[in-house]
């Protein structure tokens, strides 16, 4: 089974999030979900693209299996990152989950127009948030067959 196979190796997740509190909370939620993963955190869109293209200080970065992307970021915002990833043949197969506070309809539609793989609004309540992170993990890491490296 694929899930069993996937479980045998560590899942690489790139979290693009400018708020350290939020990033930490997501990390904690992932830890609670007991997933074998390595979470890499970058704080803005420019760093995210550098990480994905292994540029600058990310020269030895691994290609992530999943990108968790916030929309409102300094320098280059999440929408631009999404557009660039989905336009790049080398990157476009990586699933991108939009994980954001905004539940504005225009953001949701825009993200799907740019080929986001799913859109999740972060709930305020911690328990709900943890549940959602666990579900993301469950779905994208255990259920879905991801493209090989």
């Amino acid at each position, binding site marked *: 089974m694929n899930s069993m196979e996937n479980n045998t190796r560590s899942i690489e997740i790139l979290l693009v999030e400018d*708020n350290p*509190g*939020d990033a930490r*909370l997501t990390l*904690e939620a992932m830890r609670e979900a007991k997933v074998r993963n390595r979470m890499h955190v970058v704080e803005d869109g420019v760093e995210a693209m550098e990480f994905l293209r292994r540029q600058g200080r990310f020269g030895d970065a691994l290609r992530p299996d999943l990108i968790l992307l916030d929309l*409102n970021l300094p320098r280059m915002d999440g929408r631009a990152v999404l557009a660039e990833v989905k336009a790049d043949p080398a990157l476009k197969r990586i699933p991108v989950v939009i994980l*954001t*506070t*905004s*539940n*504005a*309809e225009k953001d949701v539609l825009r993200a799907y127009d740019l080929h986001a793989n799913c859109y999740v609004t*972060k*709930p*305020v*309540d*911690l*328990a709900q*948030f943890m549940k959602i992170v666990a579900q993301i993990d469950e779905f994208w890491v255990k259920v879905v067959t991801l493209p090989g490296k």
Partner: protein
Amino acid sequence: MLTRTKFSISVAVSLAAAALVSALVFRAVLHAQQEAADNEAHLELVQHLSHLRFALVEYLTFGQERARLQWDSEYRSIDRIIERLDSVGVDAELLTRVQRNRRAAQSVFERLVATSTGSGSRQDVGREELRLRLSSQLMGRTQDMISDAIRLSLRSVADVNAELRRIALLVVLVTALGMALVAANWFILQKTVLLPMRLLETATASIAAGNESARTGLPARADELGSLARAFDAMAESLQHRAAQVQAANRDLTRESAERKKANDALEASARALERSNAELEQFAYVASHDLQEPLRMVVGYVQLLDKRLAGKLDGDTREFMGFAVDGALRMQNLIQDILAYSRVGSKGQSLAPVDSAAALKEALDLLASRIAETGAEVHAQPLPMVMADRTQLVQLFQNIISNGIKFCKDHAPRIRVEAVHEYARWRFSITDNGIGIAPEYRGQLFVIFKRLHTRREYPGTGIGLAICKRIVERHGGELGIESAPDGGAVFWFTLPEGESP
């Protein structure tokens, strides 16, 4: 006097004058002809009398029979001529004298002939004497006759001349009369036709050129052109009056259109301002949905994380305080969500389309499924119609009202009834609950934003839910209100425009 009458009289006078003059001329010509014929006869008489005299002289000189016969012949001719002439006055007198002399001459001539045919020398001396006397008499008579005939002839020539003079005079008179008539007609034409027509023409041209106050200025007259001029002046008066009215109306229109334009400009400006403020509001709403919630999530998330990690190590007070902190932050988040929902009713609304309200109700009930299950609520819906609505907002409307009905029914299982009746071109929905109801004095405040009638401890909520309902219904052009249900609950009602049948 009417122009027609004037011209009729003028024509009648002219015709009568022409007839009279013609008759006079005709009579004068007839006279002249008669006189000329008489003159011819007179001259013939003179001629025959001369021949008679020649015949007499010849007879006296030669005593021939032929001369006597000649006398007789002339005598008869003279008799015939005199018979033919029919004269009066001096002419008749002269003629009678000629006749008398002729008869006398005849008897003398017969005596002379008788004297001449007798023979005898004895009586020769006496006879010669008688012959001489008779001859002398005859010569005198014939001379008288010739004189009279010449006089007659001269008189008739004078008569002809007189008639000719009379004719000439008549012709002069006729010419003068004709000229006078022509002049009179011209004067009448000028005064009764041409002058008024010129005045009418001037006034018409003047009005056509834009001078509406122009009039004919013709003094009051009883004839046709007089009444035409009066009618024209009345028409010009009415035209001027109407033109003044039109001008006044035009001025009003111009003013009105200027005012309307000003109002339009103001309206456009305020529409632009509204658009700007709507855009700003939208931006604000977006910022609220994202930036305001993130700090709250941090507060809630980390307090809850602490609670979770330190479970068992915290005393009761600490956990209660942490509970208040989380509760406050969560309420803040609810408020933000509700304010957003309220602002989106206006800014995010879709255009109205036919919507099956039964399906919208079902969707609202699905969203409320967990609340309904928790409270054991029963919702009964009558058959519901098609309405013109924004589907998402209609769902929210049902959801808010039903959720409200469930909330205010703590002590027993909520029972909610949804129904709709048709009135005119709209539907009136009513949602009846069996909750605590609302005292009449508070009904007015119910739909005011942030207005709460109970403490949060009794009934939680932000006080925005019904304000959102009011905004949704008003956006659909409807009305809403609340009444008391007979059994103590509340009846929320609202109206929506009817939609086409599915």
